[in-house]
């Protein structure tokens, strides 16, 4: 069961997700050790595989560093749910085969520690703690196909 780690913050930026002092490597295992470090030094210790990050507006703003997505994937985070995403981060997620869930009002619907069950096909989040079902807008088909293939390069390869 995925647990929600809620940060009541807008503009959580790429420097908080993976500080530039760690960009001297592109090894996901190494990056994962510092995932979210400048926002919450305890995140890596607290988060279990499949857990979910929940934030407000403009998640992932700032740098184009895909290292931010690799750090999140490396830390085995199951999903990021945000009111909105910064453009390059959003695109990087899709390119890496990671599903960014855009959900306006997420911070009102999900509390820290809530148990979530996400159905990507239906576009629903079951909040087991609150006993609610929340709809989200699924990715457009072309982006969904990239995510399903495991990222852009796998997708290109498959099409050839």
């Amino acid at each position, binding site marked *: 069961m995925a647990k929600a780690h809620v940060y009541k913050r807008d*503009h959580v930026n790429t*420097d908080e997700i993976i500080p530039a002092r760690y960009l001297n*490597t*592109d090894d996901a295992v190494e990056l994962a050790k510092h995932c979210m470090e*400048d926002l919450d030094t305890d995140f890596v210790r607290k988060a279990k595989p499949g857990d979910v990050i929940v934030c407000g507006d*403009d998640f992932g703003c700032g740098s184009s560093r*895909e290292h931010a997505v690799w750090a999140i994937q490396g830390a085995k985070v199951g999903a990021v749910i945000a009111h909105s995403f910064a453009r390059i981060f959003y*695109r990087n997620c899709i390119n890496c085969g990671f599903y960014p869930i855009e959900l306006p009002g997420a911070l009102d619907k999900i509390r820290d520690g809530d148990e979530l069950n996400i159905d990507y096909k239906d576009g629903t989040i079951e909040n087991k703690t609150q006993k609610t079902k929340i709809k989200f807008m699924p990715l457009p088909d072309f982006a969904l196909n990239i995510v399903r293939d495991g*990222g852009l*390069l796998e997708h290109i390869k498959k099409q050839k």
Partner: protein
Amino acid sequence: MGMTITEKIMARAAGRTSVKAGELVNANVDMIMCHDVTTPPAISMLREHGVDNVFDPEKIVVTPDHFQPAKDIKSAELHKRLDSWAKEKNLPYYYKLGRAGVCHALLPEQGHIRPGEVIVGGDSHTCTYGAFAAFSTGIGSTDLAAAIATGVLWFKVPASMKFVLNGSLGKGVYSKDVILEVIRRIGTDGALYRAMEFVGPALKEMTMEARMTITNMAIEAGGKNGIVGFDQTTKAYLSGRLKGKTDYTVFESDANAPYVHEDTIDCSKLEPMVAFPHLPSNGKAVGECKGLAMDQAYIGSCTNGRIEDLRIAASILKGRQVKIRTIVVPATPVIWKQAVDEGLAEIFYDAGCVFSAPTCGACLGGFMGILAAGEKCISTTNRNFVGRMGSPKSEVYLASPATAAAAAVEGKLADCRNYL
């Protein structure tokens, strides 16, 4: 309905006669910028997928900049990967240490940016090149890998926002103050997914260097690209400078082009600005915040590390002593040499500054001026996020080179107009 300059460039690159905002297009890429942080992973991805192809070596520019000269063993390994790939592919525009510089200053200076083209780079500040009437945007490593191999990327055509810069900049007020004011007004996601087009008489008066400071920070408002139309200033800058293809196509926005937002800034009324921690949108007029003590001043980066910026800083530092650690970083070797030849380096030395080799360095918390917990830095860079220049407990204040130089002299936030 007419088209904006951004739409026209995207249509041309997609082989279409017209496109509309919101449409998805496959566009041919005309130029790709590669640096030492995001390109080595792209090279590894291509190798892992058995792709050895570079779509067009003439359309790739490579320069290490973030951690150059290598700051530690890990960054040396990144440089080694970049170097061996650039050599293996015989890339003609590979700038090695000694000729390498901060990418967004280097590419225009070395004549790689042409109007009307689609330019991508593995760096969010790739939007800088929009100052040359080009469509230019930052991408991640996977997109970079796809672009290097195929020369084609998909884009959603962005809706455009128009910013009219009226009036004329007063003494001590620069293009950096204008863009900090724009971001203050619309916020760090005010232009999310959108093109930011800058027009108006105050813009027309600006040099290409000053315009690049504006388009550079489009990403700090979430913008997909920043763009400025072509004029005589653009033409004069490009003349005799372009490498490879010397012809280019000039596009301009139609009078009836659609804009989702229009804003007018009276530049005559602007004051020098300082953006407080921890967002570039926290701009305040310097008059509201004079006297706040600083620990360091940093003058450099892709935003404000060009020769014009160093001249402005030197004009304030000449014959004066800095009261805090002051680091001056020319963005490229050519700028470094100009600063030496013009006597600016000596002025910086005499004032007690350190004058460094070109690097992105401390702007992103790499090296060459990292902040300790509790320290405050006045910086001519583009981001003041938590931990951006060092300790998560340090603070970055964004400003123009003049405001940074004035703060260096007083050791606290100060009005640069008292020194001009």
